[in-house]
């Protein structure tokens, strides 16, 4: 069973074609890092996976279940009700560049809101689970703080714990450290490394090349709405085949 399978995915915003035929698969336990210049469609790809954007055409399978399917003309072949789409995507967790914590909830409240609302989960059990996750990201002592009192790095760790509290099988990260001051990047990457070690399936859009090299099982280079090159970190970073990949890697090194 593959965790994610994307076939011939296209996405346009009006006239602007952002994703032009994307095909890729993610297997269980893989950590796939997506790199590429800004505007190449990396965020859009992640957002299509969990239906924050509606694809224009193509197919998306999550854990072998077809969750989105539109033909070349853009007609929805599934016509699923909102509830069903949500149910099919419940194994995907997402972490955003700008954290998007709920400012009116405490840290603990942020973690507990979705399980209690969506799953109608037991309060005591959810709380225990949330506290355990906060411990895991090193923020057990911040449970009763409001997000605005936390540093960016702490907020992003809360956001990771919040996503994990829904017990996803796959975690999507969209430039999770790009909004952070340099000295706070490390603590977030540490949490992500731990998650990878535990065998979580992860798709990470990132500019942290050393993280990608160390943690990724596979690196995907995107440019202009295409997957231009993919392979192991060694293949992509040390022996890039495509000129655009070489060009990009040269630029990020400087």
């Amino acid at each position, binding site marked *: 069973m593959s965790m994610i399978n994307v076939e011939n995915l296209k996405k346009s915003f009006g006239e602007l074609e952002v994703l032009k035929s994307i095909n890729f698969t993610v297997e269980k336990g893989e950590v796939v890092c997506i790199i590429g210049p800004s505007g190449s469609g990396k965020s859009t790809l992640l957002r299509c996976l969990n239906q924050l954007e509606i694809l224009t055409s193509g197919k998306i399978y999550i854990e072998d279940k077809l969750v989105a399917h539109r033909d070349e003309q853009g007609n929805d072949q599934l016509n699923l009700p909102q509830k069903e789409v949500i149910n099919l995507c419940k194994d995907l967790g997402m972490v*955003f560049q700008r954290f*998007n914590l709920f*400012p009116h909830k405490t840290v603990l409240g942020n973690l507990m809101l979705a399980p209690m609302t969506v799953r109608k989960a037991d309060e005591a059990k959810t709380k225990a689970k949330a506290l355990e996750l906060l411990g895991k990201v090193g923020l057990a002592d911040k449970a009763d703080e*409001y997000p605005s009192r936390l540093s960016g790095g702490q907020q992003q760790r809360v956001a990771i714990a919040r996503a994990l509290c829904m017990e996803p099988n796959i975690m999507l990260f969209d430039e999770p450290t790009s909004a952070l001051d340099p000295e706070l990047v490390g603590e977030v990457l540490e949490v992500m490394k731990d998650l990878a070690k535990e065998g979580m399936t992860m798709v990470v859009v990132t500019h942290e090349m050393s993280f990608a090299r160390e943690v990724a099982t596979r690196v995907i280079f995107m440019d202009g709405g295409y997957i231009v090159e993919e392979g192991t970190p060694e293949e992509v970073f040390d022996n890039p085949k495509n000129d655009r990949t070489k060009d990009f890697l040269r630029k990020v090194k400087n």
Partner: protein
Amino acid sequence: MNQQQFMAYVEGTMITLQLTFISVILGFILAFFVAVMRMSKNKILKSISWVYVWVIRGTPMFLQILIAYFAVPIIYRNMTGQVLSNWSAFGAGVGALSLNTAAYTSEVIRSGIESIDKGQWEAAQALGMTKAQAMLKVIAPQTLKRLIPPFSNELTTIMKDTSLISTIGITELVKTSKGFAASGAIRFYFFCGAVYLVMTTLTTVFFDKVEKIAGKYE
């Protein structure tokens, strides 16, 4: 001021407060629906709420009160052939004030909801919430806090505007004062003003406190 006049003031104040609170509560509830219609994808619902807000905000409230009291029963009779019984000045006044508040407040609610960062919707959705759940648990609580100052503002505005209803025969604060002042006792005008000031100030202070409490997380 003798005891009889004092009692008349108590009565007038009660009428003003009743008009205010009934209109504001009905108006805010209606405002919520108008705002939701305005933001819906349905073109017809959208247009209805747009026209409604356009008409109400673009015409004087005084005229709306006159239409509610004098014109509505006649229109009703012409359309149905029956006489609209029990059409009271109080009811017409509350109706006009509610519709008026709803139009202004719906725009406040809409811009409040739209001022919430799009990332909040996305985070809620990515966590598996439906649109309705996101609205209820994430967007509305944050919007509500931002709405406290404009709500408070609208409440004091309506409180003062209830005086227009005296023109269709309701003896609220202003009309009570006018009656007593008719014989040249102009102090009653100033007393009336003082009562309004107390009410509007208390309202403002109260909602400032509410806002502080609601805003503790920022």
